[in-house]
């Protein structure tokens, strides 16, 4: 079981690599339109040695982590509030739905006008893409907490802050964590798109820059880095679902 989980994906990746090399070998595409695995490997080495790939990865990760944590830090309390206060829900829900349906990339020009090219603009765009799903999902989770938990809380003298930290928060945790996983993937998509336009560094910029530099091998290198880091981000967030006190949300 365990070895299968390691070997099988490697086999698939190797097969994919073989197909790639095979298509390249037919010569159907010009080298600049379809780089060979070897050229990409060389490009990878070049980018690693120059340190650019590492710097770009760190830059993108830094932006994602900042934007994401900011959105979680504002979105979860916001969702808690909306979930508990009916008037707030009535007042804000339509406008939240309005903004949720705007692609964060539509904000790109304003992001550049307000924050310039660099970290702040990307963080702003990531914030926008993560904030609204988190608010809505937290709100729904709060509204769906079975009433019996609050009765029990009352019976055992949990009020106010204690009720919040010992009943409401743990009760919504499984659903919030699921949303975190989904939105982290979204944030990673958005940072790359944002950096392609409003960046001077980062993996998205590396994509755009390789394109401007007419270097498809480096383009593929950046794409591979983006994919791999995306996997790592999801693996890290999966760890959250393994916390014993949230397992109940996934096991039944």
């Amino acid at each position: 079981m365990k070895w299968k989980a390691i070997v099988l994906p490697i086999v698939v990746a190797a097969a994919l690599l073989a197909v790639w090399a095979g298509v390249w070998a037919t010569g159907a595409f010009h080298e600049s339109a379809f780089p060979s695995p070897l050229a990409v490997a060389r490009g990878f080495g070049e980018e690693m040695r120059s340190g650019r790939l590492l710097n770009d990865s760190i830059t993108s990760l830094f932006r994602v982590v900042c934007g994401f944590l900011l959105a979680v830090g504002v979105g979860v309390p916001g969702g808690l509030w909306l979930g508990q206060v009916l008037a707030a829900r009535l007042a804000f829900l339509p406008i939240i739905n309005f903004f949720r349906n705007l692609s964060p990339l539509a904000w790109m020009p304003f992001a550049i006008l307000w924050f310039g090219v660099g970290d702040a603009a990307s963080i702003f765009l990531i914030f926008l893409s993560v904030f609204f799903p988190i608010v809505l999902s937290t709100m729904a989770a709060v509204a769906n907490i079975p009433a019996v938990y609050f009765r029990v809380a009352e019976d055992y003298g949990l009020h106010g802050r204690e009720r919040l930290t010992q009943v409401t928060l743990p009760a919504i945790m499984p659903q919030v964590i699921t949303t975190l996983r989904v939105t982290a993937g979204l944030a990673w998509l958005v940072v790359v798109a944002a950096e392609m336009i409003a960046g001077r560094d980062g993996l998205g910029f590396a994509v755009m820059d390789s394109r401007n530099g007419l270097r498809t091998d480096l383009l593929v290198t950046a794409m591979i880095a983006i994919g791999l880091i995306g996997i790592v981000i999801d693996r890290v967030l999966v760890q959250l679902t393994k916390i014993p006190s949230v397992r109940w949300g996934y096991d039944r």
Partner: protein
Amino acid sequence: MFRSTAVKILAGAALLVIVLGVLRYKPWQRRDQPMEAARASLNVGFLPVTCHLTCPVTDFATRTSATTRFESQRFTDFPTIVESIKGGRLEATFMIAPLAMKLREQGVPVKILYLGHRDGSTIMVRSDLPAKDLRDLRGRVFALPSKYSNQNLVLRKLMEDQGVKPDEINFVEMPPPDMPGALASRAIDAYFVGEPHAAKAELDRSGRVLYHAKDIWPQFISCVLVVTENLIREQPEVVRDLVRGIAESGEWAESHRLDAAKVAAPYFRQDESVVRYVLTQPPDRVSYRMLEPTDAEMEQIHRMALKAGILERPIDMKDLIDRSFIPPHIRAAEISVN
């Protein structure tokens, strides 16, 4: 229990931000270069095209100079440059001339101080098409970088001269880096763009030169140096240094073409051989001399922009152009490569 896990996760998140922040900003590197902070520096925007070559060369030349450090800031498109200027985060940049006029029309206080280059744009056609002029491109797909580009204006003039009506050619707007690939895959039949995006198709043998810009409009201008009035008001000396730096870099590039390719390629992050090809095949493909904008040629661009509907109303060209920073004598910058 729930509490302690939450604390652990929060601590982990905070640690992650700090570690990434430190790796990103590398505070230890700042301390190594105490001189850096003492010296004034100015960011100058450019795109990785040979029309903007003097920008990275000036950057290279002022790396260690005693005066202002001109740091070239690479962008990937003009809209981002415009948004950075409007947002007050960029005060000097290279950009296409009609776009500078458009900014002025919108009330953004910018001035054209100097030209970036002359010539250096090329019309490419698919190598398998027997086209000899624009008349043969009727019904074909023709790519332009932007409707605000000078290429667009010049092309319209040429069409008029050859008796081709505007709607007889299908124009598409396309980012320059995509043009050679689109030509190779026959998605487009011809394009007009600044180098090296034309030379790329020539090197690939998927396209051939139909016209060099100089064949259509001798001493063709596409890009100009644009500076905000704010910068002129507050740091006139820096602006003077900048214009002189660009003039001297241009003079140097003119006589050191191979070295210029070597210096610029890393800034462009392009293959040095492509840049070298543009600068040498033939040597007058692009020129970095005589960069003082004349009233006549700027007025001509202005007129053409109005006619093409890019500008909605005439602008006062005296407000737009300021030649007072151009040095009287231009000598080649002293640049040693390696």
